[in-house]
């Protein structure tokens, strides 16, 4: 298992480096002269040359790439934002915790509410709990997140005035973005959990467990859920990987200064260092989270763990015996 982990870790690093090279190359070939963008059309040719030299963009491509990679990965210096004159790395350090908290809590809320809802619906199949959950899921999966967010703002910020509608002053600022982001997710997870549990409900081993004399409650929690929730956790795990990159809509609506808003502003103003920095950070986080999630599957489902072990050993020390 350790071998598997190391192999995956190596691959993750490779993925991050590849992402860095890719984004650098793409931004390099995108049309637009950075010096003109910064100084505007009234700059003289001398000024432009000056700025180009300052930014280092008059050097050949490979030299720039090399220097960029060196700076980013060895010195952790992602450069300075062209329009804000602040260090990109510093900006990221400030914003990553905010976005991460937003994304993480959103997913946690989604799971904590959605999974029990789904289990409840499945174990009360065809009764009102089931119908209620299905309707809820249908409604909230069909409406766009931002619409829900705007409704919340109008209701809680404007009418009732109990929650702020922008910024990151205190914990209160996190409530509305997390809530509106989570609602759609809750519907989805509830539905998915419900169908996973329903599949398991009719499984033979459930009847076996009952036939052994296990109490119905224990049957649900110790026999049904551990099996039914494996695909559900897969689903939840995948959403964790979008923790960092997926919050842009909420950030925009709530003027929440996180990584998503940073990136979106940078794209609009063609702030190359920020764009590059954000993309690399998002790629890194996604890759690492994905690795952690995959490893957690091994912990939860012994069949997966065996697969991992098999994958990483050359001559399979296969434990399967006829």
């Amino acid at each position, binding site marked *: 298992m350790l071998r598997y982990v190391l192999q995956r870790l190596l691959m993750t690093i490779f993925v991050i480096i590849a992402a860095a090279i890719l984004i650098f190359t793409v931004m390099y070939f995108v049309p637009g002269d950075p010096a003109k963008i910064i100084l505007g059309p009234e700059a003289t040719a001398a000024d432009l040359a000056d700025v180009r030299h300052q930014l280092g963009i008059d050097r050949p491509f490979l030299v720039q790439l090399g220097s960029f990679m060196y700076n980013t990965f060895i010195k952790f210096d992602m450069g300075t934002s062209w329009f804000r004159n602040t260090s990109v790395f510093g900006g990221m350090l400030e914003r990553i915790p905010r976005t991460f908290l937003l994304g993480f809590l959103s997913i946690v809320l989604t799971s904590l509410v959605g999974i029990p809802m789904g289990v409840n619906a499945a174990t009360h199949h065809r009764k009102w709990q089931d119908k209620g959950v299905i309707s809820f899921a249908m409604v909230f999966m069909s409406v766009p997140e931002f619409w829900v967010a705007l409704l919340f703002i109008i209701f809680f910020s404007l009418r009732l005035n109990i929650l702020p509608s922008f910024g990151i002053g205190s914990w209160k600022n996190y409530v509305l973005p997390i809530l509106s982001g989570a609602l759609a997710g809750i519907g989805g997870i509830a539905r998915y959990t419900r169908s996973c549990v329903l599949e398991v409900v009719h499984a*033979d081993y459930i009847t076996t*467990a009952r036939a*052994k*004399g*296990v109490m119905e409650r224990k049957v649900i929690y110790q026999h049904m859920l551990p*099996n039914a929730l494996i695909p559900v956790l897969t689903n939840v795990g995948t959403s964790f990987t979008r923790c960092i990159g997926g919050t842009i809509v909420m950030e925009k609506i709530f003027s929440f200064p996180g990584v998503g808003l940073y990136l979106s502003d940078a794209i609009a103003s063609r702030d190359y260092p920020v764009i590059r920095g954000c993309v690399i950070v998002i790629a890194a986080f996604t890759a690492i989270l994905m690795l952690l999630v995959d490893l957690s599957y091994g912990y939860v489902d*012994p069949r997966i763990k065996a697969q991992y072990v098999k994958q990483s050993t050359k001559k399979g020390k296969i434990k399967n*015996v006829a």
Partner: protein
Amino acid sequence: MMSEKNDNLLSVRDLVVEYTSGGEIIHAVNGVSFELEKGKTLGLVGETGAGKTTIAKSILRVLLSPPAKVKSGEILLEGTDLLKVREDEMLKIRGAKISMIFQDPMTALNPTMTIGNQIAEGIRLHNDVSALEAEKMAIDMLQSVRIMEERFHEYPFQFSGGMKQRVVIAMALACKPKLLLADEPTTALDVTIQAQVLDTMRDLRNQLGTSMILITHDLGIVAENCDTVAVIYAGQIVESGSKEDIFDHASHPYTVGLFHSLPMWAMGEKRLHPIDGLPPDPRIEPNGCMFRFRCPRATKACEATVPNAELTSGHFCRCIAPKEEV
């Protein structure tokens, strides 16, 4: 079958079970009665869909309650009507007094629990022992089905079909039940493993004195393992008796048809002789003899309810014109 013998372990009387599906009623079991003596094995024979599994699951009360419903009848285990027992009492009976083995070993075990723990779970439910003791008892059971102690901590996917079934057997017999319900335990296994599994079951039963209801559609297995036989058709027992009664003196046209449809290579036959027609649609309310649509000897009189005639002592046949001994 109103025998008054006192060493009856199980006595089923007029069991009727229905399923509701999409607004329609499916008549699965239509008045089944039989008895089982202590230490003996009863074979329940019939085609797929005849209602055999439903009977077994009703005894253990593990039918899925919607859509299934036990409409009427009695199931007496040593005198107590299981259908009227409270659920928490039933929990103590399941696994401890009555156990069940299911047909498909591949899906009968929880994939995310070690096999050892699955056995130990049952042990701990019905015995007041510590986890360590339960583990030891489980290991003993495993060894009695010839599975090595080291495999206690392995998961079902690491075992083959035959081994899984042996685990299931170990699990079922771990608490030394009085009655074992085996629902086609070897149907999913290949022939060589079948023999192994059945041998294991027989050894254990002899050791523990367990009675068994063996559900199968394989007459060969019945011949090897059962003391008494009941033949089921369309949710009713059409013929029952001792093994010799059924095999040597088959009387009901259906039973006769079953034996005839066995391929007899030794006799030089080149063609099979299936019974004409198909089993009746269970949505139709049973009336009269349900075999009359396929019976070569059916008459108008078969439309009326057919009494259960006792041909010889213990040999019952539900037919007004049973096959006469030639």
